[in-house]
């Protein structure tokens, strides 16, 4: 049971006490307990640390902190030891005793557990030196590493709830709105609507009741920044919502979380209970006369429920279908009342703006996009994970400095930003700054921050087809352009990848894409043609090759490619024959070639076209680059 914090003075006293307590520890071992690391057994690692610290008599001096996601999930389980900043990756329970006795006690670095930079092949000892982290600008995610999501005192120790305290005691609603407006914060969920302006519209709408909603229905496959924030630092989201509630005059808020996020629901639920017990939620918060509480809503997980009006329908228990805007939710939302909806990342930014000041926030980023943005970096890239960068950073910096470039020394081809309905940007756009307006200008979008990197072995027509398939399955089916149009784009693309594309296909795709973009009811339909329109713009030659020459330049579209052995490179090792699922790769009677010389005993292989199902297993298996696709 958290102790009740009666007023602001008590809050500051508790903050001081929490800070002092934390100073009492000589070291902190921060182990990630996020969903990504769970998959690597982080709970066992944490238990092992707890046991080991007790066994070695260090429990009083060394604090073990279970944190939320550090963003580098592929390296899990991972920990950072403070203050030395030693960073260990892929640790198992078996490593723990050594970490405690060698590193914690004796200050020695265990080489084997350090991160190896794939670019330089060098070991990196400190977290701050790891290129993946070094080139980011981590505000939200820095906090994730500094708090145990279930520990209110941890959050207070990093300055938590000082923003809410200011909003409740010192500021008028109008002042809060002005601060948020001056900060330049824009919604991180997709459209990038100015947050302060949204609050202002809501507050100015005559009504007895108003609501606050936190959208945590992250539907983009592969994106999980909102989950990680909610799991790792739920108090920040709660605090942001309190500030918003005060600004617009709401007494109740909802957090709409996808069902697939159990840990986020658990941590947020625990944080809400603690905040309530401490008197930071509920009646008369900190004796300021302001009351506000939060309910968690678990969503069915349809992609379209991430759209604000669809989400509102869903919270009210109706089919999660979007409705035409205007009226905007800020005018008429939940139960017909003015409602502010912002996503998790947006809410988490709010406390910082209040405590560090709107000028500080507006000092980061570009003219019209301020602060940082979290991206989920995946695909053909060396370092995958969640990256937080200042607005305005170039795509090249994200892909090469943070992401470490393309694996296997292959060539970059495109990066899709903004999730499944984002556009694919080519190499020539890599030096463009990443912000809301620039991305839109380039034919893509910020979206919620998905970022998929593609290499030269990616076929852009195939990519466009893949996303149209996904989006046609996610269309709610309400309006004609999206429901009827997206599957038609998918069908046309399917024909093209099968070598059956007609000469008119490109023009028809363009025409149809424009109608779906302009005339759809909601943003899901409105953005869905992006993958098609952007690839038509930047990779038209690939479409033409498929249609006119019946050729897939990237060697992906099965109907248009053949695998064959380059005979004078084949050493006869037989790797292809071993992996081929249909026995299409077989030895010939001809001699193989090893280091330029013919060997009679070793037999060159070949691929029997009639049997080949074009799975590509042989090309992956061949160490001698003796297999080609054309």
């Amino acid at each position, binding site marked *: 049971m958290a102790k009740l914090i009666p007023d602001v003075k008590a809050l500051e006293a508790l903050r001081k006490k929490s800070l002092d307590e934390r100073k009492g520890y000589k070291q902190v071992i921060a182990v990630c307990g996020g969903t990504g690391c769970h998959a690597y057994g982080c709970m066992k690692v944490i238990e092992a640390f707890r046991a080991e610290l007790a066994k070695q008599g260090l429990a009083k001096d060394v604090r073990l902190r279970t944190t939320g996601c550090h963003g580098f999930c592929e390296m899990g389980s991972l920990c950072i030891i403070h203050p030395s900043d030693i960073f260990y990756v892929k640790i198992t329970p078996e490593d723990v005793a050594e970490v405690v006795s060698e590193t914690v006690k004796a200050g020695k670095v265990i080489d084997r557990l350090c991160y190896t930079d794939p670019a330089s092949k060098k070991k990196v000892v400190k977290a701050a030196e790891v290129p993946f982290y070094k080139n980011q600008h981590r505000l939200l995610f820095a906090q994730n590493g500094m708090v145990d999501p279930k520990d209110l005192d941890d959050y207070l120790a990093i300055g938590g709830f000082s923003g809410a305290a200011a909003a409740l005691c010192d500021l008028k609603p109008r002042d809060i709105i002005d601060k948020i407006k001056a900060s330049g914060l824009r919604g991180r969920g997709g459209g990038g609507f100015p947050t302060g302006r949204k609050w202002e519209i809501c507050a100015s709408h005559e009504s007895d009741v108003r609501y606050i909603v936190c959208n945590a229905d992250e539907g983009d496959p592969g994106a999980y920044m909102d989950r990680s924030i909610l799991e790792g630092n739920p108090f920040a989201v709660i605090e942001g919502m309190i500030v918003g509630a005060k600004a617009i005059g709401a007494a109740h808020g909802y957090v709409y979380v996808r069902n697939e996020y159990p840990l986020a629901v658990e941590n947020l639920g625990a944080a809400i209970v603690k905040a309530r017990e401490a008197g930071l939620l509920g009646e008369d918060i900190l004796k300021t006369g302001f009351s506000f509480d939060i309910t968690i809503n678990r969503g069915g997980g349809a992609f379209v429920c991430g759209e604000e009006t669809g989400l509102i329908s869903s919270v009210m228990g109706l089919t999660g279908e979007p409705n035409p805007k205007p009226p905007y939710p800020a005018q008429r939302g939940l139960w017909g009342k003015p409602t502010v909806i912002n996503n998790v990342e947006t809410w988490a930014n709010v406390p910082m703006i209040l405590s560090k000041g709107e000028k500080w926030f507006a000092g980061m980023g570009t003219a019209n996009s301020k602060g940082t943005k979290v991206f989920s970096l995946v695909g053909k890239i060396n370092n995958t994970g969640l990256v937080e960068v200042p607005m305005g950073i170039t795509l090249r910096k994200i892909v090469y400095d943070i992401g470490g470039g393309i694996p296997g020394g292959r060539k970059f081809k495109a990066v899709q930003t903004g999730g499944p309905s984002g556009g694919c940007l080519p190499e020539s756009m890599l030096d463009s700054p990443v912000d809301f307006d620039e991305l839109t200008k380039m034919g893509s979008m910020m979206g919620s921050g998905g970022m998929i990197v593609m290499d030269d072995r990616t076929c852009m027509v195939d990519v466009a087809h893949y996303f149209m398939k996904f989006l046609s399955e996610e269309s709610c089916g*309400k309006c004609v352009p999206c429901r009827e149009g997206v599957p038609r784009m998918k069908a046309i693309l399917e024909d093209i990848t099968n070598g059956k594309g007609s000469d008119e296909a490109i023009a028809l795709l363009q025409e149809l894409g424009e109608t779906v973009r302009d005339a759809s009811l909601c943003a899901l339909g409105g953005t869905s043609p992006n993958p098609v329109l952007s690839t038509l713009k930047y990779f038209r030659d690939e479409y033409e090759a498929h249609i006119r020459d019946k050729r897939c330049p990237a060697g992906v579209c099965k109907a248009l490619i053949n695998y064959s052995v380059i005979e004078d490179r084949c050493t006869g090792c037989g790797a292809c024959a071993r992996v081929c699922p249909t026995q299409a790769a077989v030895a010939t009677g001809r001699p193989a070639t090893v280091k330029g010389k013919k060997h009679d005993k070793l037999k060159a292989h070949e691929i029997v076209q009639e049997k080949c199902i074009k799975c590509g297993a042989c090309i992956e298996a061949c160490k001698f680059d003796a297999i080609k696709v054309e």
Partner: protein
Amino acid sequence: MPDVTIKVDGREITAKTEETLLPALLAAGFDIPHMCYNEEIKPYGACRLCIVEVEAGGRRSVVSSCSYPVSDGMVVYTDTERIKKHRRMIVELLLARCPDVKEVRDLARDVGLEHEPRFAKRDKGCILCGLCTRACEQVVGVSAISFVGRGPDKEVGTPFLDRSDVCIGCGSCYYVCPVNYVEMEDEEDVRRFPQWKVEFEKVWCERLGRKVPKKMLEHFSKIAKIPEGWFEGSPAGKK
């Protein structure tokens, strides 16, 4: 409520404050195609045929006029190249979905779509405008039918496509359907809705002067708090 003035294709017209654009445009004589709108039912914005361009802050955006609230001084364009082009494409999509539906073919002619749809034809009869389900819910108040499924496979039907227990046989769904997809077999003593798998016994109603489904009379008597027997109780005592 004071009226507002809006400028449409250069011409000034007036509208009521609480109105949306489409009824105001129709009343002023503009010919705007629309298939999911009915003035008795809340706007839905699904067919997207009623799109127009609205100018705000120097930018023109495409909006559905049936759902867009009017405001004083707003500037609207109904017949631009962009609107015509998008509208034709929407009709082409509908025609590919429902190539045999007369109303859709007529619409194609009206918007100047001269060629056959460039997409593989399907053979649907329903355009999923949602008028029937909304009429049943909002006007009749029983929600006997609704959409089943999502996305391209969506259809209209009764829950689990089974016989509806709550349908009262009023026929509102049949009357509002813009493409005559809802089937109603209205005979002397019985009314059937094959798609909803229901049939109703009809009784004489003096007030209406014809035979109507009994369940419908009961329903309306109940919600309108009409004394029992009002519909049947005829001055002449005729049955």
